[in-house]
Each structure stands twice: as structure tokens, then as C-alpha cells.
């Protein structure tokens, strides 16, 4: 009898999911759910709604796994995008109150502890990316990724030319990438 696997490589995971292997799916959930949940909470501003979104998203992943291919990037990216899109749709359809959204846009100190009401992961020695991010970058990422505003909406809100929106986006991600690279030393 084959020894029970506790670890899946990405390609194994994909093929097992395509085979409708529930154990592989459980593995996927265990590894991806915390980040997905956190991101969705930040988007929709409510844990209750976030749970619905996460549930919907994982079921979508299970049902449409054959649509994933490596040219789309990593499996996690694909799953995260499904969740984010579902969350944004929920955000728009539910018309969640602005006050709730303001909380999630708290730019003061985006520490992990702000978001967690339950279990808190201890990241001893882990540098706070958010603290090191420049406000202008944080804002762009928040508005685009967590709020889902269009390029023209952002140009309006920030009173910048439409063309600059793309440049700002690039700057933000380049800065983030460099920041993350330097963190890889520990």
C-alpha cells in the first residue's frame, strides 16, 4: 500500500484535483485558505461575508480546476484571483456600507494583528512589509486590488492623468518586489 502523502508538489496537486481527489482538495484548502480568507476579509470588510465568499470560491476551484494551466501562473495565483473576483463581485452587489470599508482602508498600521480577531500567527523576526511600504504605493494597491476600482475611477479619485495610473501601479509593484527581495535574507 502506498504510504500516505502529506505533501503535494504543485503539479501533483493539480493532477490530483483534476482526478477529484478530496484529500488533495483538503490539502489545498489547508494551505491556501488562511491567506485567501484574510484577503477576502480585507476586501468585503466582514468575516461572515468573507466565509461565504471563501466557500463559493473553493467550490468554484473544485468545479473548474480543468481550466487551470501553468501558463496562467502559479496555482495559488489562480485560486487567489478566483476568490478576489468573487469578493469584488460580492462587494459591488451587496453594496457594503462605506464605514466598513473605511476600516479596511486603515493605512495607519497595517499589521497582521489588526485583521485577526481569532488565531494570530506569530511572525517572530518577520519584517513588517506594510510598515515599510510607502503610503502612495499602499494606496494604489489597496484601491486596485482590494477595492477593485477601475483605472479611470482611480485617476478621478487621485486626480491624476489616466496614463499615470499604469505607471503608479508599476512603481508600487516594483517597490514591493524589491522590498520582498531584501527580506529573503532571513
Amino acid at each position, binding site marked *: 500500500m502506498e504510504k*500516505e*502523502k502529506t505533501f503535494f508538489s504543485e503539479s501533483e496537486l493539480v493532477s*490530483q484535483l483534476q*482526478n*477529484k*481527489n*478530496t*484529500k488533495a*482538495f*483538503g490539502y489545498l*484548502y*489547508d494551505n491556501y*485558505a*488562511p*491567506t485567501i*480568507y*484574510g*484577503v477576502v*476579509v*480585507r476586501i468585503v470588510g466582514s468575516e461572515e461575508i*468573507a*466565509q461565504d465568499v*471563501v*466557500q463559493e470560491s*473553493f*467550490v468554484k476551484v*473544485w*468545479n473548474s480546476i480543468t481550466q487551470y494551466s501553468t*501558463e496562467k*501562473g*502559479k496555482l*495559488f*495565483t489562480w485560486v*487567489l484571483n478566483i476568490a*478576489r473576483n468573487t469578493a*469584488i463581485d460580492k462587494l459591488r452587489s451587496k453594496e457594503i456600507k462605506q464605514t466598513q470599508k473605511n476600516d479596511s482602508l486603515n493605512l495607519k498600521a*497595517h499589521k*497582521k494583528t489588526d485583521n*485577526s480577531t*481569532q*488565531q494570530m500567527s506569530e511572525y517572530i523576526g518577520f519584517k513588517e*512589509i*506594510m510598515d515599510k511600504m510607502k503610503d502612495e504605493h499602499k494606496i494604489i*494597491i489597496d484601491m*486596485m*486590488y482590494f477595492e*477593485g*476600482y477601475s*483605472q479611470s475611477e482611480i485617476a478621478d479619485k487621485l486626480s491624476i492623468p489616466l496614463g499615470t*495610473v*499604469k*505607471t*503608479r*501601479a*508599476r512603481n*508600487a*509593484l516594483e517597490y*514591493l*518586489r524589491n522590498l*520582498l527581495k531584501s527580506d529573503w535574507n532571513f
Partner: protein
Amino acid sequence: MKIQEYIESGILSIYVLGIASDEEQKEVEEMARQYPEIADELYSLQASMNEYASQFEMAPPKSLKDKIMQNIIDETPNATIGTSKNGKIFQYGMVASIALFLVSLLGNLYFYNQWKQTQNDLAIVRNQNIEIADNQKVLETKYRELEGELSMVQNPAYHITYLEGMKDMAPQSYAAVFWNNEKQQAYIFTNSLPKPPSGKQYQLWALTDDNIVWDAGVFHWGKFTPVKCFKKPQKFIITLEKEGGVPKAEGQAYAVGVVKI
């Protein structure tokens, strides 16, 4: 369009941050398919976003997983629970396994019977071998005896006298008497004289030069048998007597031999 320009335009970032329009999305995907540098840049930016996203990690309630697992099981009746690859394949595998088991079970029963048979045959052969070994021992003893006898008679001290069978009783038959006067040992052998019927035995007589007939004793047909020894025998006579012999010759004379010294 230059690749570097395209990368620096920020369209990839818009795409990664999820707000590219449908046309822009299609364009980016097409460019990534065509140009590996663009694909690499895309994946790199996505990796940064993935890591950024993990900053917001938050443990969902445990019940959420159960709900989701139940959902997918409800949606997929053939979902495989566990490490097996595919529902149908698993089922076929089970059937195949059971079939194989039954086949092997039958096979085992057959082979068990064969084994038992072989064990029986082995027992028989073993007994036969014991018999053979016993026979072998007997033959070895006989052979040693013969060797002994032959080595004895190569000694010139043993004077040999050949007895010829009586023409009317035992034509073309012979007997040999081996006589060692020094040691006073004598032997007789014949297997060419007719084998005496049951109840009867050949007896050897020695005629000495004083004309007295001496009883040399009965002997076994076909066996090298010791007989009584006398000084200076002139003639040997073999008669057929009753088993055990007689003090005085009664029976038919079968062979006679003159001692030539």
C-alpha cells in the same frame, strides 16, 4: 513593440492587480504566450503579490472547511476520499484485487494439493531408499565375503581339486575344492552342479590313500563353504543326501575328482 517598453508600461501591473479591462487582459495573455520575457515578468509580479497577500493571513473558522468539503462531496458523487487516484479506477481496482485474490486462492489450493501429493511420493521414495540401502548393505557384505574368498584362493598353499559331475547325473558340471594342508583348512564351491531340491543337500566325501572314506561335511550350493580337512585325500566325491548329511554315503554320487599333487 519593444518588450522592455511593454514591461515598463505598467500594463502587466494593472493585470496583476486585477483591474485590466477585458481587452487588456487578452492582450497581456497573448504577449506572455509570445514572449517568454513578458511571461517571466508577469510571474515575478504575481509572486510579489502572492507574498504580499500572505501578510493578511487570517485563520478561518474550522467549520468553514467542513462546510466546503461537504459541498464538494455533494457536487461530485464520484469524488474519491483518500489517497486513491480516481473513483472509477479505484472501484475497478477493488474488483480486480478481489478477482486476483480469488485466483491466487484457487492457485494456492491447487498447489497445496500438489505439495501434499509430492510429500506422499517423497515418503514412498524415502522408504524405497531405505530398502535400497539395506540391500546395498547385504550386497556389500556378500562382496566382501567374495573378495575374501578370492584372495584366499590366490594363495598357492590352497591346492585346488576340480570335481567333475557324473555324466548321468550332472554333465558339464564342476565343483572345486580348495585344500590347505598346512593350515588344515578346506573349502568347496559349486554353482554349476544342479541345485539340490529342498530337503536335500550335497555332501563331500574324501577318500584317503588307506582306502577309507571320510565325511567332509555338507555344504551349501552356490556358496563358498568350509569343509572338513583330511591328510592326503586321494579322491573327492560329492553325493546328494538329505539335509544335514549322513554318516555313511547313501545318496547318488554326483561328482568325483582326483587329487593331483
